């Protein structure tokens, strides 16, 4: 009896000691939703459902729990994934209280390949799939249940189309099939067709196919392999690959023929609006970068009041010349866009809403002030309602969203 009491006392003391150390080492989340790094997971790993009010597995450790509950209010600038993400996607959903229609978000954790779902009106995240696929470099989303992941096996790119069961409740395993790996691809605004460039010996073939890989048809062949494909509702395009100081061009693909839209611009990087009417493009020579908008109907070119690389911008709606952009506070000495594309240069962006046709720009966020973090916007996208701007922070590969509704 006495021995039992002694052992029980020792056990209780051990629990208290562990709990004490967990309490003093667990980090807190700031108002931007960002975890302050560090251990973080000790308390969370012992009490995975936020027992005791600590954070839920924050920092750079991979999310490993099915439900990450967080009842704090959602900040306008929000770090959605605690760690590196391969990409996120907006989709329409009903909010839990049925009041305002929230926007759903799914994102893929890069280290594990697990898919998580959250929404713009909550910080709580739920794991959708638990199939582990590490090292995902790229995700192309068709919808929340169908997407393509790309990763490396050695230096060969593997392309796998994932199909989640829309009717499944709780976590599910990933099913899908491998597709032929392309070198560069672009999805149409309806997310039905993929325009892809496949390097083929000396040169390339450009093909269109359905998202599930069916209906493959060649639309162009070229002695060049570095074409960059783009799509709008108006058609398919090929742009020359960008390089600092090298004139580039954008062509529309029509019956195996290239028809020039705009070009002869150094360091040319274009982004075509969903309707196809506008072409946002950046020019670059050394560390001199410019941003312009070309209206294909009026044939007018408008200079943006702010300069950035066009691929750091996304059109806010289908047919308006307004874009949300990450705008670097400065361009360090270098050769752009080469150095940024290679990962040699990193930026600290402010986020702006820009209308080059009017010359107006509205400041949306100062991440270094609002969230105490340097953000380098990559893979930007705007949800269908035009209310949210999503992007990867290239500095740490985390996935972020910014509410545009405040503007």
């Amino acid at each position, binding site marked *: 009896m006495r021995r039992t009491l002694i052992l029980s006392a020792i056990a209780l003391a051990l629990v208290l000691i562990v709990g004490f150390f967990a309490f003093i080492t667990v980090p807190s989340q700031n108002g931007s939703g960002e975890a302050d790094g560090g251990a973080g997971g000790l308390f969370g790993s012992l009490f995975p459902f936020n027992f005791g009010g600590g954070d839920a597995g924050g920092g750079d450790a991979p999310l490993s729990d099915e439900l990450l509950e967080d009842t704090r209010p959602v900040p306008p600038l929000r770090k959605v994934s605690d760690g*590196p993400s391969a990409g996120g996607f907006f989709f329409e959903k009903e909010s839990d209280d049925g009041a305002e229609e929230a926007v759903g978000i799914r994102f893929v954790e*890069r280290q594990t390949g697990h898919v998580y779902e959250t929404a713009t009106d909550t910080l709580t995240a739920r794991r959708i799939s638990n199939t582990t696929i590490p090292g995902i470099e790229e995700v192309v989303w068709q919808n929340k249940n169908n997407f393509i992941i790309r990763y490396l096996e050695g230096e060969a790119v593997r392309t796998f189309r994932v199909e989640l069961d829309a009717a499944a409740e709780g976590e599910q395993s990933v099913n899908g099939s491998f597709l032929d790996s392309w070198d560069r691809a672009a999805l149409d605004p309806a997310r039905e067709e993929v325009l892809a460039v496949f390097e083929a010996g000396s040169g390339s073939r450009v093909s269109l196919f359905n998202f599930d890989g069916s209906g493959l048809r060649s639309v162009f062949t070229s*002695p*060049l392999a570095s074409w*960059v494909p783009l799509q709008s509702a108006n058609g398919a395009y090929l742009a020359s690959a*960008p390089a600092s100081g090298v004139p580039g061009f954008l062509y529309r693909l029509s019956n195996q023929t290239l*028809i020039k839209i705009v070009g002869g611009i150094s360091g040319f990087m274009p982004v075509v609006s969903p309707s196809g009417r506008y072409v946002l493009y950046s020019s670059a020579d050394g560390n001199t970068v410019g941003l312009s908008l070309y209206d294909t109907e009026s044939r007018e070119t408008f200079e943006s009041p702010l300069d950035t690389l066009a691929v750091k911008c996304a059109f806010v709606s289908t047919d308006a010349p307004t874009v949300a952009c990450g705008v670097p506070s400065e361009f360090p000495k270098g050769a752009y866009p080469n150095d940024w594309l290679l990962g*040699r240069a*990193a930026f600290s962006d402010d986020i702006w809403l820009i209308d080059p046709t009017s010359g107006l720009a509205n400041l949306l966020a100062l991440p270094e002030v609002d969230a105490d973090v340097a953000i380098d916007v*990559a893979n930007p996208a705007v949800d269908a309602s035009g209310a949210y701007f999503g992007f990867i922070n290239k500095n740490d590969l985390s996935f972020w969203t910014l509410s545009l509704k405040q503007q």
Partner: protein
Amino acid sequence: MRALLVLAVLLSAPLFASAELIPVLGGALELSTFPAAPRARDTVTVRAENVLSPGNTTFVWRVNGAVVEQGLGRSAITVTVGTLGAPTTVSVSATENGIVRAQKTITITPAEVDIVWEGNTSVPPFYAGLPLTNPSSTLTLSAVPGIVKSSMRVPANELVYSWYVDDSRTALAVGTGKSSVVMETPQFANPFTVRVIAETRDGTVRAEAHADIRPVQPEIVVYEEAPLLGLIFSRALGNVFHLAEEEVTLRAFPLYVSRLDAPAYAWRLNGSPIVDTSDDGRGVTFRKSGRGGGAFSVEFSLENASLLFERARTTFLLTL
């Protein structure tokens, strides 16, 4: 007497006629345009050529039949041409002392051609930028024409292309449908210019373009290869890499080299060769051993014995 006077006049008539026939033209009246091959909506200068004394010559200019300019010495005009394939007719008459000495008409049909090129060199996976050419490599150039005739776009493979390098009068390549060429950099590291002329088979519509190309030296970019994150292409190693974890795997990617399997690769730590690398020699793993810190010089180099300019080296400091 009267007969003699008439005879004298008749005999002297050729003298007067000869004075009126003194040529004001150095040859047939020609019209030149600048630019020589105008693109759509270009402003074109059209100039009368072979006029010996333009100051004494009255020119009357017509564009699409309408007089747009006339006057003494007005030997050139500017005209804005239309869209691709839309012809603009320019005619001029040269008059002296009220006598039309010559007339000339040309039709300007705007056309265009672009040169899109790439080096046949290596870039890392997922890199969306242009492979550049190095002084030893080849490059591929493709002409993308925009030539419209009789309101129909002429297929690219039905045009005649002529390719030239720098000021050479000898074509690098000529042929119908010859819209692309593969060439070696002509003068090692020196910049060079490639010109292309694309024209219809009958030569009536013509477009020109040139590309100024500067070869670059091969480079090396090194990325961390994390066990679960994979290759972190978003962040290339800089001058210093701090080893925070117990080990790190790094992988070097040659940039702008012709063949990845040709060069000899070497990793060095503080000048000493590292033997234990990946199978292809481009990957290496560093592990901490023992305690304490330090800084180590790491070097990765590549050298292609058969291509003089395909060599590169990068160094960084590995700190613990």
